C-alpha cells in the first residue's frame, strides 16, 4: 500500500508544467506582464458578477429573511479570505493554470484529483444554474415584449412542476456550438459585459429604492443566525469567479502588490453591489413574495414602477450578460477536462482536437450534454448549493494547502504571500467549514458521492495511466 500512497502524492514538476506551455520553443515561455490594477479588477468583477445575483435572492430570502444582507457580507468575507489564500498558492507555481494544476504541482496527484472533482462540479453545475436563471429572464422578456410565455412544462425542472427546462438546454447547446466553432470571449467583450451587468444592477438599485418600505424589514431575521448562514451557503455561489484574478497572475504587472489590491477591490465592488441590490430588494418587496419568484429583480422593478419597461430593460441586460457567463463557464469546464486528459487521468477521447476547428470537440460535446442534463432537470436552488459546496471545498483545500506549503517548502519563491499568516488561512478554513456546515444534508451527500466516484476512478484508472508514471509522451 505504501508505494501506492507514494504514487498518489507524487507532484507534477514545475519544470514539466513550464515545458508544456511552450510549444516546441514557440510562443510559450514568459507571458508579457501587461495587466495593470484596473483591468485586473475588471477581470475579477466580470468573472464574479452575473453568476448569481440575478436570481439568487428568490432562493436566499426565504431562508434568511431581510437579514440576507448579512448573508452577502459573510459570503463576501469568506470569499475574500479564500481568494487571498488562492493567490498565494497560484503565485508559488510560476505557470498559470487552474486550481487543479496548482494543487498538482504543490500538493500531489490525489489532492489534485480531489480538487478536479470540485472544479468539474463547480463549473458544470454553475453553468447549469446560470442557464436556468437565464431561462427565467428569457421568459420574462418574452412575456413583456410579445405577451407569450413558454409553458411551464417546457421551462421548469420536474421538481418545479415541468418536464424539462428547454430554454436552458438550448442556451447550453448554443454555447457548445460556438465553442466548437472556436469562439472565445475577448477582454473587450468582458469589459462590455461588465458595464452591462453593472448598469442594469445600478438601474435596479436606483429605481428600486423608490419603492422602499421599512415595514418590509420588520421581521428582519425570522430564522436567526442559522437562517443567515444557511443563505450564505446558497449565496456563496454568487461569489464564484473571484479566483479568476489569481489565475491571471502570470500576466500581471507587479503581482505582489497588484494582486491583493485587485482581489480586495473586486471583492469590495462586488459585495457593495450585491448588498445594495439585496437591501433594495428586501426593502421594496415583502419576504413572502420572494419564494418561487422567477426573474426576481425584473419582477420587483415592475411592481415598484407599475410598468413593465424597467423589467424589460433589466431582463434584456441579464440575458445578454448571462449568456456570456454561460459561455465562459462551459469553456472553462472543457479546458479543465482537457488538462486532466493530457495528464493521462482520462482516456484519449477527451483530448482529441478537431483538425479544422482546432477545438476539443468530443470534450465540448460531453461537457455540454452533462451541463444540459443538469440544467434541464434540476431546480435552481439545488444547483446553486452544489456549486457553492464545490467551490467551498476547493477553496478549503487551497487554504490548507497554503499552510502545508509554508511548512514543507518554506523557501519556495512566492510572488504573493497571504497577509496575516497564519490567521488568514485558518480563518479561511473555518469560514468555509462554517458555510459548508449550513448547507442541506442532501447537498453534502451528493457532493461526497461525486468526489468518491472521481477518486475511485483515479485509483482504478488515473494512478496507472498518469503521465507522471507512463513518461512524458509528446508527438514531437
Amino acid at each position: 500500500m505504501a508505494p501506492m500512497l507514494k504514487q498518489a502524492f507524487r507532484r507534477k514538476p514545475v519544470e514539466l508544467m513550464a515545458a508544456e506551455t511552450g510549444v516546441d520553443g514557440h510562443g510559450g515561455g514568459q507571458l508579457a506582464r501587461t495587466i495593470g490594477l484596473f483591468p485586473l479588477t475588471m477581470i475579477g468583477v466580470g468573472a464574479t458578477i452575473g453568476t448569481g445575483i440575478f436570481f439568487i435572492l428568490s432562493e436566499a430570502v426565504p431562508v434568511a429573511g431581510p437579514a440576507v444582507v448579512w448573508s452577502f457580507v459573510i459570503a463576501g468575507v469568506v470569499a475574500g479570505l479564500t481568494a487571498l489564500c488562492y493567490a498565494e498558492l497560484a503565485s508559488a507555481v510560476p505557470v498559470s493554470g487552474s486550481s487543479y494544476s496548482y494543487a498538482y504541482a504543490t500538493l500531489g496527484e490525489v489532492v489534485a484529483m480531489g480538487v478536479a472533482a470540485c472544479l468539474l462540479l463547480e463549473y458544470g453545475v454553475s453553468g447549469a444554474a446560470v442557464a436556468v436563471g437565464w431561462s427565467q429572464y428569457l421568459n420574462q422578456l418574452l412575456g413583456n415584449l410579445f405577451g407569450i410565455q413558454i409553458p411551464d412544462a417546457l421551462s421548469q425542472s420536474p421538481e418545479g412542476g415541468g418536464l424539462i427546462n428547454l430554454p436552458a438546454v438550448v442556451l447550453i447547446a448554443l454555447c457548445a456550438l460556438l465553442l466548437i466553432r472556436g469562439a472565445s470571449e475577448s477582454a473587450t467583450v468582458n469589459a462590455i459585459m461588465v458595464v452591462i451587468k453593472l448598469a442594469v444592477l445600478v438601474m435596479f438599485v436606483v429605481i428600486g429604492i423608490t419603492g422602499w418600505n421599512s415595514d418590509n424589514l420588520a421581521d428582519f431575521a425570522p430564522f436567526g443566525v442559522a437562517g443567515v448562514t444557511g443563505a450564505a451557503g446558497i449565496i456563496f455561489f454568487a461569489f464564484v469567479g473571484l479566483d479568476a484574478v489569481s489565475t491571471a497572475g502570470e500576466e500581471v504587472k507587479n503581482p505582489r502588490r497588484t494582486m491583493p489590491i485587485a482581489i480586495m477591490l473586486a471583492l469590495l465592488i462586488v459585495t457593495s453591489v450585491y448588498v445594495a441590490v439585496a437591501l433594495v430588494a428586501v426593502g421594496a418587496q415583502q419576504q413572502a413574495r420572494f419564494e418561487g419568484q422567477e426573474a426576481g429583480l425584473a419582477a420587483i422593478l415592475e411592481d415598484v414602477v407599475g410598468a413593465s419597461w424597467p423589467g424589460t430593460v433589466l431582463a434584456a441586460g441579464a440575458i445578454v450578460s448571462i449568456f456570456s457567463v454561460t459561455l465562459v463557464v462551459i469553456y472553462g469546464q472543457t479546458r479543465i477536462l482537457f488538462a486532466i486528459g493530457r495528464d493521462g487521468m482520462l482516456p484519449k477521447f477527451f483530448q482529441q482536437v478537431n483538425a479544422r476547428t482546432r477545438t476539443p470537440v468530443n470534450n465540448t460535446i460531453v461537457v455540454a450534454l452533462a451541463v444540459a442534463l443538469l440544467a434541464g432537470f434540476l431546480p435552481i436552488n439545488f444547483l446553486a448549493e452544489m456549486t457553492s459546496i464545490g467551490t467551498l471545498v476547493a477553496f478549503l483545500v487551497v487554504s490548507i494547502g497554503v499552510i502545508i506549503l509554508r511548512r514543507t517548502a518554506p523557501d519556495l519563491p512566492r510572488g504573493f504571500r497571504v497577509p496575516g499568516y497564519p490567521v488568514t488561512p485558518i480563518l479561511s478554513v473555518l469560514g468555509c467549514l462554517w458555510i459548508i456546515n449550513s448547507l442541506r444534508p442532501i447537498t453534502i451527500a451528493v457532493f461526497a458521492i461525486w468526489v468518491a466516484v472521481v477518486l475511485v476512478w483515479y485509483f482504478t484508472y488515473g494512478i496507472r495511466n498518469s503521465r507522471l508514471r507512463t513518461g512524458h509522451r509528446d508527438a514531437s
Partner: protein
Amino acid sequence: MTVLVGLPRDERAAAAVHLGLMLARSLDEDLLFCTVVPPPWPPGMARVDAEYQEYLDSSAQETIEEARRLVPGDRSAAFVVARARSTSAGLLEVAREHGARLLVLGSSTAGVLGRVAFGSVADRLLHSSPLPVVLGPRGFRCRPDATVRRVTAAFGATDGADELVVAVAGVAARAKAALRVASFAVRPRTPLTAGIGSRAEDAVVREWTADVERSQRAVLEQVEKLPRQPSAIEAAVGHGSDWAAAIEDIGWDDGDLLAVGSSTAGPLEHVFIGSRSSRIVRHSPVPVVVVPRGALRALADRAEQG
C-alpha cells in the same frame, strides 16, 4: 501555354508585371498582358461617350506601353486590350481564348504595402475563376532574372489538403524549386474570466500541432514517391496569437510563393476562397496562388505521372 497577367487600368502595373515575369520564367511559359476597358454605349446613344472612350483607350494603351517597357528582351510577350462589361469577365474571356493556365493580378492600392489585398476584381475572380489565380503583395518587385525558389503549400489537416501538397510538389518540381508544407497554429487568448489561467489554450494548440505534424509527415511521404521531386522538401508549423503572427513565424524569403486551396464548400471547377484561406492570403508577405479544386486534381495527377 500562357501566363495571363491582368493589368490594372489606372494604377501602376509594375507589381503584376514583375510577378508575371517571375512565374513565366520559372515555369517556362509565354506571357500575355491584358487590360480591360468597358465597351462603348450602343451607337445612337449619346455621342459624348466617345470622348470618354478615347480617354479610356489611351490610358489602356499607356498601361500596355508601361508593361512593355518592363519586359526584358529575352521573353516573348503578347499584349492585348479587351473590351468587356466587367474586368473579371473580360480577363476570363481572354484566358479562355488564349488557353491561359494562370491568372496573375497585383494587389489593390487600398492594401498595406507588402501584403496581399484583394481589390474588387481579385475578389470576383477568387470566387469564380476556373484557373488558378496568383495575387502579388502590394508593391511586389523582383530582379529581372528572379525565379520561384520555393513553393509553400498551406496545409490544414482537412479534406483535399493532401491533393494541394501533391499538386504543388509537381509544380515546384517543374520550376526546380523547393517544396514547403506549412500549417498555422493560431492560439487565441484564453479568456481570463474563466479562472483557469492564461495557458489553457496552449495545451489544445499543442495537441493540434502534434496531429498536424503527423499529417504533414504522411503527406510528405506521398510526395517522396513522386517521379519528379522538388529540389528540397521541408515542413513547418507557424505559431502566433493571430494569423499575421503565425504566418510571419515560419519565415519568408525572396522567391517564395504560397499556395492555398479552394474551400470544399465551393464548386469543383472554380476557385472559391474560404474564410480560412482568405485569412492566410490577406496576411501573406509573398505572392499567393489560389487553386480551384478541379485544377488541383489535374495538377496532382500530372505530378503523379511525372
